């Protein structure tokens, strides 16, 4: 069965690279068309110890990608040779997978963001295009959040600041993107040390009283 159009979809994923690590963020909604169908799904997963994957687009395809990477991690672990696949290598591998699927005209309908130890932040889209960047935003976020992230980004930015910035962008997306939600998830991937993927939580202090003045 070939996916020619996505059915249950996740929206934007945002990422920002800081001096001490990478912050990844997204909301927890999987929409069925315009219906906010599943409101507490996790779109950030952590199959490996050194990296996390965030994804938008078709949710079932995202689960398939996650399964694929879990299999890869398990296989590597079973080699028992102490070699761990670097985040960059996983990123390139994902690009090959996505490219191969698009070349079979059976694409995985996702935009994927990979954040890893050593301040790695990279994107792969459904065509297999892979690149690394200081700031990353997929889906609607590439229109609304990417300019904000680019403006906020500084080379000496720390993770607290980065997290605040991503949260701000998620808030903007919630206000403006009809397929976004106020329930969000953040992942903090420090350059070294344990990765922390938050539970879904609500963005606070939302203000709608200006809404009537906005066209």
């Amino acid at each position, binding site marked *: 069965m070939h996916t020619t159009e996505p059915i249950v979809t996740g929206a934007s994923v945002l990422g920002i690279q800081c001096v001490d690590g990478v912050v990844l963020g997204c909301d927890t909604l999987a929409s069925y068309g315009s219906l906010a169908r599943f409101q507490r799904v996790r779109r950030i997963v952590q199959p490996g110890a050194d990296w996390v994957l965030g994804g938008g687009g078709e949710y079932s395809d995202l689960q398939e990608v996650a399964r694929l990477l879990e299999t890869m991690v398990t296989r590597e672990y079973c*080699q028992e*040779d*102490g*070699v761990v*696949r*670097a985040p*960059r*290598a*996983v990123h*390139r*591998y994902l690009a*090959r997978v996505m490219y191969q699927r698009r070349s079979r005209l059976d694409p995985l309908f996702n935009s994927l963001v990979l954040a890893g130890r050593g301040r790695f932040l990279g994107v792969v889209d459904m065509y297999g295009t892979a690149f690394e960047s200081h700031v990353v935003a997929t889906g609607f976020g590439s229109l609304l959040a990417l300019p904000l992230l680019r403006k906020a980004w500084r080379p000496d930015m720390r993770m607290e600041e980065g997290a605040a910035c991503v949260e701000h962008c998620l808030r903007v997306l919630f206000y403006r993107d009809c397929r976004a939600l106020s329930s969000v998830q953040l992942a903090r991937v420090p350059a070294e040390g344990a990765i922390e993927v938050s539970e879904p939580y609500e963005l606070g202090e939302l203000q709608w009283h200006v809404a009537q003045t906005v066209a």
Partner: protein
Amino acid sequence: MLRNQYDTDITTFSPQGRIHQIEYASEAVKQGSAVVGARSGTHAVLACVKRSVSDLASHQRKIFELDTHVGVAVSGIIADARVLSKFMRNECLQHRFAYESAVPVGRLVRHVADYCQRCTQRASKRPFGVGLLVAGVDELGPHLFETCPSGDEYELWAMALGARSQSAKTYLERHLEEVKQAKRDELIRLALAALRETFAAVRDAELTEHNCMVAVVGIEEPFRVYEDAQVAGFLEAIRPAPEPEGGSATGAPSASEERMEDTS
């Protein structure tokens, strides 16, 4: 070796639990000219004696680069070795294609060993008559591996294969501690000195720039092969040293069963 009742095919065990065809393949490894491998904390080195079938022929190369971070020295049937080298080069390239990174040396060796093993379990196949010394560097540091026709593989500090390799092995065992600590050029010197030991019992033969080859790979140093005039400098380093017995190394276990005289 005597003819044996249970050696006509590769899938039959002898009552003693041996598979003679594999053992014969291992004999082929011993007939190749000597190769030596050694590794320290920072580098891995391969050295070999190149054999020439006649004065009219060129010397046969026995060290091959597989990728920028790994190479192999072979002993045995060189034609078989070429097949395995091609297999390993392919593995390296595929890994680079998929992951944009160098294949971990241990994984590469495991792969080629599995490939060799497959030939030991089918009646229609023949084991590879070649032993490999694989030297390479990955994120865990430098490595040296040996593979056998049986499909076994071992990780080692130092090893020698091929004709009269026992004397080289003995030398390396005696100098194991030095090998472990050695810096780049020192490691090359030790490997060549070990290789030279294989000539000790042969009259009118010595290591020259024409009949030996050296390869080095290190952390931050890509695999590089030295031959002909390029090895002259390395040979110079081992020339004046008539080996003082024992040296500084003592901790190394010495070969117990096999002694030097069994090499022909």
